[in-house]
């Protein structure tokens, strides 16, 4: 018996079609398909860019999850020592996962929902504030 995850239910309200099946990802795709209990809803597939490369993800999932599925685990380099960082807590508490999204730095991508056309960049240090 499969159970729909309630986290996605409120994103379902905006869907135009009945939900395309997950697009064909890389051959050794890291998206789980045959889980004994859970069925992952086929949310709307969207495109976004990461450091200029086009990647596909599921609308509404955390940006970090979409990146992870695409094999990207290095999200930033720390300000003082330039150390590679990824995410750690996944609940927006530890601030490991800060990236620059649509020009805005220090976005916690482990909780920030993915939207079509987002421009996501590896953050170097503290990032740069956009000047209007």
């Amino acid at each position, binding site marked *: 018996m499969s159970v729909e995850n309630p986290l996605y239910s409120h994103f379902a309200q905006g869907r135009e079609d009945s939900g395309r099946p997950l697009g064909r990802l890389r051959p050794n795709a890291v998206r789980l398909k045959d889980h004994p209990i859970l069925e992952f809803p086929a949310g709307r597939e969207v495109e976004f860019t990461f450091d200029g490369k086009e990647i596909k993800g599921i609308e509404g999932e955390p940006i970090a999850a979409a990146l992870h599925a695409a094999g990207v685990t290095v999200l930033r380099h*720390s*300000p*003082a*020592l330039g*150390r590679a*960082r990824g995410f*750690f807590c996944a609940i*927006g*508490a*530890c*601030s*490991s996962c*800060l990236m620059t999204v649509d020009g805005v730095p*220090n976005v916690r991508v482990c909780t920030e929902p993915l939207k079509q056309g987002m421009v996501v960049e590896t953050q170097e240090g503290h990032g740069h504030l956009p000047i209007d």
Partner: protein
Amino acid sequence: MAEREKSPDDNIVICRCEDVTLAEIRELIAQGYHTIDEIKRVSRAGMGPCQGRTCRQLIARELAIALGVPVEQVEMPTFRPPSRPVLLSTIARGEADE
């Protein structure tokens, strides 16, 4: 001033927001900074986006070991709002009208 022995642990990053290593923490303790607040103010450990959520307990543990006290006797730093980073534009805009 106390001479601190180097240790293989020195490179461990304790505060990942501000890149403060265990060596720096131990150095400050050896120099006489014996509270989390003081260490925070000098090194910036605990001042980053996570406000010490990750490093506070690790620093407390180092202090407890160095001072030879149980960790519950290590004084906690002061906690102030905001609990998570807030954009300056949000504050500048003032209170939202209902």
